């Protein structure tokens, strides 16, 4: 009995030590409010591959830094769906067939820094997206680079994982702001809409009342 107890205790001690040696794992929080956008009377879809939707950034910092494993893909899919659903009257999710516009994002690179590295009070995260815009035939119309940045002060945080998660969430909100600006830019949008409407005579390019206004009326 005494021997068994010793074995259990030593196994637990080894497990505790191994846990301490593991990387800091961060699952980016998917907290994105409903965007205030003027929906455009077009159908749109989001085409993501497995590399995007399950994107994980792994990096080992120089000693005494630890290894980090940042899950970026799932929350990136969430913010893009959330924004496109508000930006177009007919958002088809990942059903690209028949969509006037298809958005195909990729993650180009991810960087981060911790307060210990930067000697500041902030966790910081940079995500470089590239969003390709295709017409209903899969022909590229545009490619928008979106460099997203977020930071979170390290004070009053439960853990460094929380701090990095919040910085990544802020970076994704910044990415959403970047994509919203691209969709708002009249000149750029006009050329896109013209290209799309030329291929889809039924598609109207008239903007619709904003989501907030529709609810208010």
């Amino acid at each position, binding site marked *: 009995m005494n021997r068994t107890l010793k074995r259990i205790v030593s196994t637990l001690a080894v497990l505790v030590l191994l846990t301490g040696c593991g990387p800091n794992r961060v699952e980016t929080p998917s907290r994105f*409010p*409903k965007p*205030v*956008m003027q929906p455009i009377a077009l159908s749109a879809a989001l085409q993501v591959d497995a590399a995007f939707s399950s994107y994980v950034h792994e990096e080992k910092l120089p000693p005494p830094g630890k290894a980090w494993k940042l899950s970026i893909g799932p929350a990136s899919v969430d913010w893009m769906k959330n924004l496109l659903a508000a930006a177009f009257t007919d958002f088809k999710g990942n059903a690209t067939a028949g969509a006037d516009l298809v958005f195909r994002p990729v993650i180009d690179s991810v960087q981060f820094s911790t307060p210990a590295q930067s000697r500041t009070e*902030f966790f910081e995260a940079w995500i470089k997206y590239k969003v390709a815009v295709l017409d209903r035939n899969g022909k590229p119309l545009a490619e928008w680079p979106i460099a997203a940045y977020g930071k979170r002060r390290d004070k009053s945080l439960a853990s460094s994982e929380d701090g990095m998660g919040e910085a990544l969430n802020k970076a994704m909100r910044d990415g959403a*702001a970047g994509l919203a*600006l691209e969709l708002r830019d009249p000149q750029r949008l006009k050329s896109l809409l013209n290209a799309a409407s030329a291929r889809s005579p039924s598609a109207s390019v008239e903007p619709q009342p904003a989501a907030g206004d529709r609810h*208010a009326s």
Partner: protein
Amino acid sequence: MRRELLMLYLGCSAVLGGCVSAKVEQYRQAPTRVASIAKGESVVILSRGQHGDRETETDFNRCLANVLQREGLPVMEEQALVDALYPWLEPRTAPLNADALPKLLDQPGVETRIRAAGVRYMIWIDGQSETTGSAGGLSCAVGPGFAGCFGFGMWDKESAYRAEVWDLNQRSSVGKVSSRATGTSYVPAFIVPIPLIARTQSAACDGAAEQLVDLVRPG
């Protein structure tokens, strides 16, 4: 002997405590007649997030909000408005000056949500507290039956903040307020360290809040 030492220590601390100081400079630029906030209207305190290396501390904004609320000004929570107007108040999209305010308000749906939230004034805060210099040092030791610190440390701190108030009804800036506090903190240690902290952030907050309340005092 121990009692005498303790008395000497407390006496030194009291003298040094008198050296802790905070200097507040206030600046206000506002027209003489600003529309007072009406019943049902509120203000929101927003931080500038465009700077990569700094950001106003949430403590400072919370301090301002507490003072304004004590003076009868309803304060809406910052994150609630940022979420309500998502993504148009993110660091990338938020207007940097009052000239850009009409563009934000003309964004479809934005003014509707601001009206629904009852926000009349946006107060943009920029600035932070930082240590500008330090001197001295402390060393602590632990041994069998003994533990203690010895030495003397001091540092200078500066808290500098600027606030700009935008009237969302008038779509323009109605005034600017700045508050700057400097002070020196001391930590004398003879066995037990006693920190004598100059609360510069709190002083700057009180200075800025006083001016802000005066600017948009409830009618």
